[in-house]
């Protein structure tokens, strides 16, 4: 710890002295993970005497330094991933010190999205832990002159079983450091019976700091002599500054200067939007200065974008044949044979992420290098983006990752970090760019608006003989390449080409849509609208057929089998994983449905007037989730959600308590989508701005209690951050139908009164 303080003060971090000179910061406020050496990206793990991998170092006092290389935005990945290493190392978690990695390719992928932190790093963490443990074991055997095979690890010690001798990790570290790093083939992993932490979990490493206000978020980063900036962005995507008042903002006390930021070169990717920055000596003054800029804009082509007319275009496209993304049998021939035909259209609006901490970054440019503290899900993307903007090598961009006050996908796109870097270079001072809530809502990378069309032919028992589905949405690919109008295999693999139903004739299509705003990843992404359509439609078919929703859903899923998705959907990507390791297994789909139904008392409880239950199931990010929502709807259409029952099969679960939290949170996130989530544009300008006109669920609107049931599984670990979201909205809307007879085919509910 003393080292830490020394290094921090050498760096000048948090030593700020501001205008009043009144700033006194105690050492306790210094967030440990923000430590940075002036010129070296080395970590404590690197500097420890034994450091067999980038992720771990062991000091002679027995301190185990572990590097958290994934961003912490609330999912506990900063805790859960190093915990795997600690387990395999047999380290005492109380003697572990975590440090947060800077952006550096030596850690592998650091883009904390796609619910894959544990999935992708379970094995690398085990290998790093087993490597260090083997070296310590070899060192102990050498010290005692006994065979390695007679030695084993126990909590933070190596034991020689025959003689009962013990040596601590700190005691062995120096000798172990002299040994060659063993090859992966030499490693022996702990049996499941010996796991200390995997499957039991640990509370967040930062829990106490968070509850006492000491935790350091991006918003809290501070450097001596830093300035604060707020940027007036073009109100329409692609807009340019024609003119602005350079002088008037300076009338605001604390405002220092204004700086124009050039517009992006299409496609926008992660480039700053352009506009005018106001630089001040505190955040509020920068906000106030913007009000006096009086910018005249050239709005450009997207000024004709209106959500009302765009919606009609999407819905019309969804009614026309699209690109075939998956085909089984011949739906046209089956429709021609007749049967009961059911059709439905669904529509979901754009959404904004609205993490509680708006986008924020601090940058310090000097001598051709820039050091950044950014609330980012992807520090390597910060490096690349900033390097591109400043024309410097990306090695000269050091990106530290403080805690994120939420992310939900927004903070995978580092446009705001690039703004900070540009402004620091322009002013010659450290600059913190703070986005207001209005900036966050109006200048997002939005979850795409979507329209879906569904058509099925039913046999006498109500089982579909044919099922056609078509989705239309401006794709995320439009952020990276111009004229991208169709979804790719990844977009469509999220709930569209992977429908696990037992239907002989099935076709999934996708129609084109142009983007007029920035489109981006949003917690669970395309699964949201795709699952809303498929799972609501399944419930509609159950009702049409006069069958129980759960019984019908299980019939649709059909017998236990492995679905070879790629055979019928060539572009299906299975979240980047091999289907042989992560197959789509309908036995697991069925099981979560059965658990959720049983735990909710489905079909066994008498529901009162205006009360009902609804179910939905979906596999996303390789995790199987079924959700039953229970609602009470009064005569005014007010919806209460007394309970949610969610069954989760995520394969091996490292941290069950954190997993439960993620699914509780997903239900609340889903509640926001259903109740009030809607972003619209008029003349290219986003109409919403803050939590008054873009409401998110509050404590009185959220589910009263979400019960989470985790399936005990030895299957490879999948994801937990996102998969709770997709089934929630259809489950809730199916429950509203059960309670009121009113079918919800469009969101948000605020626009479609839920009363019958």
């Amino acid at each position, binding site marked *: 710890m003393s080292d830490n303080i020394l290094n921090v003060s050498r760096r000048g971090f948090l030593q700020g002295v501001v205008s009043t000179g009144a700033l006194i910061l105690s050492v306790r406020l210094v967030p440990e993970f923000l430590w940075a050496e002036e010129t070296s990206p080395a970590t404590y793990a690197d500097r420890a005497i034994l450091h067999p991998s980038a992720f771990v170092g062991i000091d002679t006092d027995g301190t185990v330094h572990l590097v958290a290389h994934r961003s912490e*935005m609330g999912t506990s990945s900063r805790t859960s991933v190093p915990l795997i290493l600690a387990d395999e190392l047999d380290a005492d978690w109380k003697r572990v010190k975590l440090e947060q990695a800077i952006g550096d390719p030596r850690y592998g992928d650091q883009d904390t999205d796609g619910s894959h932190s544990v999935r992708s790093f379970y094995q690398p963490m085990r290998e790093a832990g087993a490597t260090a443990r083997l070296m310590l074991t070899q060192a102990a055997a050498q010290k005692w002159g006994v065979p390695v095979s007679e030695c084993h690890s126990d909590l933070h010690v190596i034991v020689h079983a025959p003689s009962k001798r013990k040596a601590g990790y700190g005691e062995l570290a120096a000798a172990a450091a002299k040994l060659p790093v063993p090859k992966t083939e030499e490693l022996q992993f702990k049996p499941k019976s010996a796991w200390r932490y995997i499957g039991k979990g640990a*509370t967040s490493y930062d829990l106490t700091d*968070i509850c006492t206000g000491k935790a350091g978020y991006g918003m809290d980063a501070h450097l001596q002599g830093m300035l604060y900036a707020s940027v007036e962005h073009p109100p329409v995507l692609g807009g340019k500054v024609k003119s602005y008042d350079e002088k008037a903002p300076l009338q605001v006390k604390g405002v220092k200067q204004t700086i124009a930021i050039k517009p992006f070169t299409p496609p926008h990717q992660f480039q700053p939007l352009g506009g005018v920055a106001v630089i001040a000596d505190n955040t509020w003054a920068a906000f106030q200065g913007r009000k006096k800029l009086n910018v005249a804009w050239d709005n450009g082509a997207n000024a004709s974008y209106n959500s009302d007319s765009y919606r009609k275009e999407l819905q019309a496209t969804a009614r026309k044949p699209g690109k075939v993304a998956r085909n089984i049998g011949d739906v046209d021939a089956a429709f021609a044979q007749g049967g009961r035909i059911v059709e439905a259209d669904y529509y979901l609006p754009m959404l904004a992420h609205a993490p509680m901490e708006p986008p924020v970054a601090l940058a310090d440019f000097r001598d051709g290098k820039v050091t950044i503290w950014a609330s980012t899900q992807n520090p390597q993307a910060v490096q690349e983006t900033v390097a591109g903007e400043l024309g410097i090598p990306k090695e000269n961009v050091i990106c530290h990752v403080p805690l994120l006050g*939420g992310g939900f996908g927004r903070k995978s796109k580092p446009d705001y970090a690039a703004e900070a870097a540009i402004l620091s270079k322009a002013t010659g001072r450290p600059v913190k760019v703070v986005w207001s809530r209005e900036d966050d809502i109006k200048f997002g990378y939005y979850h795409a608006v979507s329209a879906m069309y569904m058509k099925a032919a039913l046999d006498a028992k109500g089982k579909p003989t044919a099922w056609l589905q078509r989705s239309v949405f401006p794709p995320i690919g439009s952020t990276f390449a111009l004229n991208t109008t169709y979804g790719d295999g990844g977009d469509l693999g999220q709930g569209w080409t992977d429908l696990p139903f037992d239907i002989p004739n099935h076709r999934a299509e996708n129609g084109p849509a142009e983007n007029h705003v920035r489109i981006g990843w949003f917690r669970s992404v395309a699964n949201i609208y795709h699952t809303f359509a498929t799972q609501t439609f399944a419930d509609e078919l159950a009702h049409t057929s006069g069958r129980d929703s759960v019984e019908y859903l299980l019939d649709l899923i059909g017998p236990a089998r492995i679905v070879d998705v790629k055979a019928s959907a060539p572009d299906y990507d299975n979240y980047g994983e091999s289907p042989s390791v992560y197959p789509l297994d309908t036995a697991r789909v069925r099981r979560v449905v059965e658990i959720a139904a049983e735990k909710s008392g489905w079909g066994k409880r008498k529901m009162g007037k205006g009360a009902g239950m609804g179910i939905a199931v979906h596999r996303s990010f390789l995790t199987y989730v079924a959700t039953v929502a229970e609602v009470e709807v009064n005569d005014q259409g007010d919806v209460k959600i007394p309970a949610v029952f969610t069954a989760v099969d995520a394969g091996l679960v490292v941290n069950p308590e954190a997993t439960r939290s993620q699914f509780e949170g997903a239900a609340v996130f889903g509640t926001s989508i259903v109740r009030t989530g809607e972003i619209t544009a008029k003349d290219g300008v986003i109409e919403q701005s803050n939590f008054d006109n873009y409401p998110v669920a509050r404590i009185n609107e959220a589910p009263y209690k979400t019960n989470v049931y985790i399936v005990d599984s030895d299957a490879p670990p999948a994801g937990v951050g996102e998969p709770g979201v997709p089934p929630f909205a259809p489950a809730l809307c199916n429950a509203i139908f059960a309670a009121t007879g009113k079918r919800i085919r469009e969101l948000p509910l605020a626009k479609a009164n839920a009363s019958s």
Partner: protein
Amino acid sequence: MIPLKVNGEERSFDGDPDLPLLWYLRDVLGLTGTKFGCGMALCGACTVHRDGKAIRSCVTSMNKLSGAEITTIEAVSKNGLHPVQQKWIEYNVPQCGYCQSGQIMQAISLLKEKPKPSDEEIDGGMAGNICRCGTYQRIRAAIKAAAGENA
């Protein structure tokens, strides 16, 4: 000059009298436990205590604070953890944690007024504080547990 007390220390402020307390705490005093979320008293992330009662610091100008006693999350407990903070830890409430300073300050204020709050009173007292991660059911459980120890 505006005299006030922050976390028990005498201060005097001579800057822009319209500056909201939030930015005085964060940018001037470096008390960053109090968070910026919306700037319009819509989310509660900036909640602090004025004379023991919860207020939204993002809409409270310095010129309204002459003689006020302000307490922030950093000083809400003089020795160790406040019982509400203890329950927040015991019930593992936070996810990202950004809103939790405000939630805790609001909950302490609520429990002062209503030592044994009902569900409706918890809803009423806490509905101004948004948690985008969705930790509400744990917030409710932690408040009830803290209230249990108010007996």
